[in-house]
């Protein structure tokens, strides 16, 4: 029988955590839900299918200062930060972090990302019903996939079933008041698997397929910025009255000047950039990187956010269906 934490006890447990941690949890901002630091458990809004922006920004901020230098002295980076708890992270987003790890949490380590990752404990929240845009199962995850969190919570009538996954998780849950669950673990409805993902895209179909898709694209940065696994950045150096600062902010492969090097742009056209993006997200990627799985985790954020409905799920299906033209 699984252990369970009653809804009322959940709050008191979070109170405890708040004493020593910065707790980041889903809160409702205006008409939608975003991960934001909370001061009291009441702020948490759990009636969401997923947040508009992924929790990645708490490890990999939209913009951050890498170092500053005033005259000779360089100010130390990273500065120490609090212990982090990410509460209510969805399995797909948790998986997204492990994708980021491949780049930022492995040599050469990204100091800032690594630090935050080490400081953070992830409390996952299983999805009770998939949203219309979800396709995590297609990308090798699941609504109740606990493999990438420290603690996994699954909502049931009388509380949350607690699954302690890691030592980190165990330490964190220690203070909580747990009991044996009477109700059986719920049946989670999974989104249907989209066929075609396993195949590589037919060479000859590419050019025209991508250019037609790119016709519609506005090459804005939305898809990249809402994506839990995009990590491209742009750096700039600032010099105000002699105080030099290195800033880094998110960038997107859909931007005009993406990877422009000394005036040369490898992906000059919208078509190139579009292809680049999907090859990066979909199975083409393992062939080039050998990482074994796609970097898309099927959260469906880009599907909902894209202003012109460029739907990655269609691309997945098309890549199989489309015959060479």
């Amino acid at each position, binding site marked *: 029988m699984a252990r369970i934490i009653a809804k009322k006890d959940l709050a008191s447990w979070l109170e405890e955590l708040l004493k020593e941690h910065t707790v980041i949890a889903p809160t409702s901002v205006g008409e939608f839900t975003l991960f934001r630091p909370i001061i009291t458990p009441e702020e948490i809004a759990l009636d969401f299918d997923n947040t508009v922006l992924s929790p990645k920004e708490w490890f990999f901020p939209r913009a951050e200062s890498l170092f500053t230098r005033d005259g000779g002295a360089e100010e130390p980076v990273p500065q120490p930060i609090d212990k982090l708890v990410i509460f209510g992270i969805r399995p797909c987003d948790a998986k997204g972090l492990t994708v980021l790890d491949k780049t930022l949490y492995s040599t050469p380590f990204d100091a800032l990302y690594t630090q935050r990752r080490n400081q953070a404990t992830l409390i996952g929240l299983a999805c009770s019903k998939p949203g219309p845009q979800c396709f995590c199962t297609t990308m090798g995850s699941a609504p109740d996939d606990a493999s990438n969190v420290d603690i996994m919570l699954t909502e049931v009538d009388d509380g949350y079933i607690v699954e302690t996954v890691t030592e980190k998780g165990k330490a964190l849950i220690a203070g909580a008041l747990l009991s044996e669950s009477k109700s059986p673990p719920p049946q989670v409805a999974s989104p249907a698997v989209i066929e075609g993902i396993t195949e590589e895209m037919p060479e000859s179909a590419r050019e025209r397929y991508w250019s037609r898709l790119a016709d519609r694209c506005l090459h804005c940065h939305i898809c990249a910025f809402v994506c839990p696994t995009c990590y491209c950045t742009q750096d700039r150096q600032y010099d105000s*009255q002699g105080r030099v600062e290195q800033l880094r902010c998110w960038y997107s492969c859909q931007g005009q000047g993406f990877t422009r090097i000394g005036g040369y742009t490898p992906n000059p056209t919208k078509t190139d950039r579009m292809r680049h993006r999907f090859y990066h997200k979909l199975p083409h990627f393992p062939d080039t990187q050998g990482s074994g799985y796609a970097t898309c985790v099927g959260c469906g954020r880009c599907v909902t956010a894209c202003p012109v409905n460029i739907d990655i799920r269609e691309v997945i299906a098309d890549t199989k269906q489309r015959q060479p033209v």
Partner: protein
Amino acid sequence: MARIGVFICHCGTNIAGTVNIAEVLEAAKQMPNVAFVDDNKYSCSEPGQASIRDAIVANRLDRVVIGSCSPRMHENTFRRTVASAGLNPYLLEIANLREHCSWVHGDGKETTDKAIELVRKAVNKATHYEALFPKQIGLTKRALVIGGGIAGIQAALDIANSGYEVVLVEREPSIGGRMAQLDKTFPTLDCSACILAPKMVDVGQHPNITLLTYSEVQKVTGYVGNFEVEILQKAKKVDHKTCTGCGTCWQKCPEKVPSEFEVEMGERTAIYIPFAQAVPPKPVIDVDNCRYTKYLRFVEEGKEGKKPPQCRICERLCPTGAIDWEQQDQVITERVGAIVVAIGYQTFDPSAYGEYGGGRYPDVVTGLELERLMCASGPTEGEVVRPSDGAHPKTVVFASCVGSRDDRMGRSYCSKVCCMYMAKHAIMLKEHDPEVQCYIFYIDIRAGGKDFEEFARRAQEEAGAIYLRGRISKIYEDGKKLIVCGEDSLMGRPVEIAADLVVLATGMVPSDGAAELARTLNISYDSNNFLIEAHVKLRPVETQTDGIFLAGACIGPRDIPESVAQGSAAAAKLATLFSQDTLITDPLTAVVDAAWCVGCFLCQEVCPFNAIDSLVTDTRTVAVVNEGLCKGCGLCVADCRGGAIKLRGFSDQQLLAEVSALWR
């Protein structure tokens, strides 16, 4: 990484008096890219400039910031200094520590702090400066002189004599201006016409001078060295090529109208020359008053009623058939390289003064009217009589400062010549009739000028004029007399004089249309509509617009010698300009970065100088700047959404650098 040198000028105590120079220097040392700081007692002095020059060389400076007076004052001086050190002159920025700081703020911390910020602002801007290189353009060595008064005449003659062609434009039928209306001139009392006429004749006959009378400048385009001027020449209805100026026509013309030249104290005919010595000595037909032209209009407009007579006497009597009814107004276009503006003045209209009768009393006349009355060629052949009854005045009262030094009339300035011409009139009247007694109400006697004071005394001692310090409070008619009530403020008692004639010493005001002309020429003018010189003391006959010069009373009250001097001065300045074969253009113009231009051509729409051309590249059509026409106003730069246009010397980057320097 730039190497900026910062030089702070004490300007004696002008800056150092309120700004702590040592602190400014200390702060400047800390500013980024500053490689050298120093101060001078007077940076603009030769030793000052030398020390800057040496410092640039010795410290391999590649930018220079000078904290001194306004850049409008010494920017060019210091650009030359910088250039003399082998540095591009446009790598200089001036922080205005005097006009904008030390002179306007008290002695204190905030003044020094401001000075420091102004320097930092300059340093930041200079960091983004780049070397600029002037272009060369050709110039037309022809001059335009606007105004045929003594100043314009002098300028035209001097320019013509230095070998350049001159176009002289005068809106009256004859040159001569106000001086021609005067009888005698102070302090020498020599006859105005006698000294002016020869010069007028010279102008009329000079091979280098094209004289356009009865004409007005209506449009000016282009820039220094290359002006294009549109001149409207009013129809004279007389062919001056065939006309010999015999005078038959104006002697026989039956239509009599008040003469402008005689200040409406005498008459002229409809076909006329303004005065005997007129140049050109050939008549024009005043179409508003000529009987035949009236008739023609009448027919044309198809009016009802009695037709005016078809006079045409002049045409019938003209021995050379010079009368040309077909002649129309015409627009003449002239290309010139420089312009002298000498549009002179007119006298203040005293009708605004109710206490002087507001123009109701015929025997209250202006100084200029008296000139005509005294003049041998005037309406009374020099016999001074009362306009009302032709009687000889025995008691004459003068009112000074009419339309001068009087805020009620919006004329706060002193017209400068009135004191002297009142003295002149007093002396002249005594000469005309020993029985005349003059009373002169004055505020101050301003007799600053060669022999002026002596002249004023002569009026009192020889001509026995009685000077009363005070203003006239009221004038009213009593029978044939004019009762003048005033105050002798020295004696502190009221005065009442029964006068036969009252003379108002009216002041000088700018000619009608001065402001309009200034706009046409793109030069500035003050609240009184007097034209503004580039610098009151140091550039008295230049304007802020290259190639346009000023002379005479259009700048402010002037007497004859000053106007003549300025005419010559303007001519000399212009000759200096013409002594070059090509002109160096200011490189501070706009320039389009074709790579960023999207070809919306908003710039073309807004440019006041049509300086934007379009350039068709292989793929697109983009904008380009014609640097000859561009005046560097930056209008297009601010309106270009793509940031594709840059204004050299005032680029977005440079200005933003200035802004960001104000916050730390």
